[in-house]
């Protein structure tokens, strides 16, 4: 009898977070009839605070046949370091990467990192299961749709794009499958994939074409399980827009209300704030939402146009007011360094957010992410950014390097001035 293939799954999350992606990958692969009883999975759900050498030590101790890592812009450098170390210690290990940092630039990643054997492009569950099956059978990874691997010479070769999973319910819930455990009373919920918006700086929903939803029965079963026997007290909804449609918001509110009445809360759900009226705010409160996250990202006309974002100051302010009336804290986000924005535009955005007294001001500098329109059209937009992850903006046509750094420091200072207040009075 052949020994099972050993697969190690790795993610380096921001501290305090878990990888739902690894849960999905493992749950889907474990349910694949081709792999049942033939593959053993180990999940290493770690953080960016963990030292790459220590992470490599743990991986090497597992002696995996395949190392699969989920890669984001914030974890990429460490993941590359780890892969290099692991490959030196285990020359036969096959390394497969996936995630938004590598999928859109798969061939470049393979050229830049000789230790990487394959990159999964786009939605990963089905492609990853195929890759594992190919590894088990000793076949080239390039046979899997949605994967860029190497030919006999080591050059990148891209298999055709993979058709998206039409029925998301085909992906087992990682929680119900027992491959992901809630941590510290908190769990993630995803009810759909994709995004109704098409913001030029964001990777969310890129390549998905349209919104695909998990069935309501599946979502309800997962939430009932988590809020019931798992004792979860807090959900993080990773949906790109919580109030996607009025009907959907009412359904979520109806479903979550009994749990909210027992103390379950939802923190920082993403909302389209310009579509939040008093009724929507009330539904959010009833669902247990205590804080939301929203734009405007910029209020400058040129940047909004370049990023294909709409912004109506009055509707935005009305949304904040409606939420505050329900006692829901609003986190307003702004990005410094968007194309078309001047330093003054950015600071006007900060002043606008402050004038609404939303609860929290969050500012960041632009990261020009692979796969986004800004990444593809950076030169014509006058964006200069670090080609290495996390791809932070260096200078724009309208804001030089030094002023971008000044805006970073100054906006952090303003956010602190705002946050330093007596709470609850």
């Amino acid at each position, binding site marked *: 009898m052949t020994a099972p293939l050993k697969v190690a799954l790795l993610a380096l999350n921001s501290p305090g977070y878990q990888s739902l992606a690894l849960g999905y990958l493992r749950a889907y692969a474990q349910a694949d009839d081709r792999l049942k009883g033939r593959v053993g999975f180990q999940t290493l759900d770690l953080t960016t605070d963990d030292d790459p050498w220590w992470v490599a030590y743990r991986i090497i101790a597992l002696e995996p046949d395949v190392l699969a890592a989920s890669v984001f812009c914030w974890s990429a450098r460490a993941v590359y370091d780890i892969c290099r170390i692991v490959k030196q210690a285990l020359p036969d290990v096959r390394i497969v990467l996936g995630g938004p940092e590598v999928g859109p630039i798969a061939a470049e990643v393979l050229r830049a990192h000789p230790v990487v054997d394959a990159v999964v492009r786009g939605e990963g569950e089905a492609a990853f299961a195929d890759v594992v099956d190919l590894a088990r059978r000793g076949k080239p990874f390039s046979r899997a749709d949605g994967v860029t691997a190497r030919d006999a010479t080591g050059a990148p070769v891209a298999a055709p794009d993979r058709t998206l999973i039409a029925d998301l319910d085909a992906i087992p819930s990682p929680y119900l499958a027992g491959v992901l455990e809630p941590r510290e009373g908190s769990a993630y919920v995803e009810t759909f994939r994709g995004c109704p918006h098409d913001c030029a700086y964001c990777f969310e929903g890129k390549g998905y074409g349209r919104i695909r939803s998990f069935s309501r029965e599946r979502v309800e079963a997962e939430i009932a399980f988590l809020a019931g026997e798992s004792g979860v007290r807090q959900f993080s909804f990773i949906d790109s827009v919580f109030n996607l449609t009025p009907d959907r918001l009412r359904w979520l509110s109806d479903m979550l209300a009994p749990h909210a009445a027992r103390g379950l809360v939802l923190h920082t759900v993403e909302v389209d704030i310009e579509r939040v009226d008093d009724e929507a705010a009330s539904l959010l409160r009833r669902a247990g939402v205590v804080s939301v996250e929203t734009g405007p990202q910029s209020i400058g006309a040129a940047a909004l146009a370049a990023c294909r974002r709409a912004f109506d100051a009055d509707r935005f302010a009305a949304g904040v007011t409606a939420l505050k009336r329900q006692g829901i804290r609003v986190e307003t986000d702004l990005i410094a360094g968007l194309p078309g924005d001047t330093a003054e535009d950015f600071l006007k955005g900060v002043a606008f957010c402050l004038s609404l007294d939303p609860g929290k001001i969050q500012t960041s500098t632009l990261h020009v992410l692979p796969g986004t329109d800004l990444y593809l059209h950076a030169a014509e937009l006058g964006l200069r950014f670090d080609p290495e992850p996390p791809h932070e903006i260096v200078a724009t046509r309208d804001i030089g390097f030094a002023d971008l750094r000044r805006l970073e420091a100054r906006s952090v*200072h303003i956010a602190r001035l705002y946050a330093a*207040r007596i709470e609850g*009075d």
Partner: protein
Amino acid sequence: MIDFHPVSIGDGAACGCVRCGPAPEAAYASVAEVEACLTAVRPAPGAPSDPGRSIAGGVALVGPEPFAHPELPALVAMCRRAGFARIALETDGSALAAHGNAVGVLHAGVRHLWVRVLGADDATHDALGGRPGRGAASRLGVAAYLEAAATTGVTVAVTAVVPVCEHTLGELPAIVAACAQRGFHAVRLEAARSLPSRAATVVAAACDTGMVNRVWVSTDGALLLPETHRLHGEPDGGPITPASGAGGVR
């Protein structure tokens, strides 16, 4: 961007350069006098926000050293009752480490400190302030306040206020570096006297020192800055110079 209404608690200043002139005698206002000023600036309940403009909601007790005011707890409580969520104290910081003052003011609701700093080291601060021992005491006081905030998980903003005169000018970059090392969140440079034209270069160097040490440096309108550093010359709502108009008995 965040308005702090300055309310004077008396005559005098928490700390100034004695080489520029003798320190004025401190005279403290009564609680009733301060309350009258506070009433004039308190936020109107339910006042509509004005998108694009700064928000109301901060008050700063300025003037002579507040920890020497016999009724400081009552003044802070009064600010709180008036509805201010952000209460600032302008201080030399030297009393913070004593008698549990750091924890006390934090619990009372003070989330902003404007600490006047005259030198990069204790000896220079003492020499320019004319008060031996105050530099070390201030350093310990700020540390105590920051520790109390960290322990209780409360967000605070501690800003160093540096009066810029011919005696502090040359040392500004070193002062900024020292403030960053001590944990200050920001540094405010305020023109205390008219300055030579070369001052702009030194002030710009102080701003750059803040950038590389991750502490924001801002200046008041009276300090000239090169165009390249204009972002350091705009107000964000930190310390306000007395000339900008404090209510009270200054």
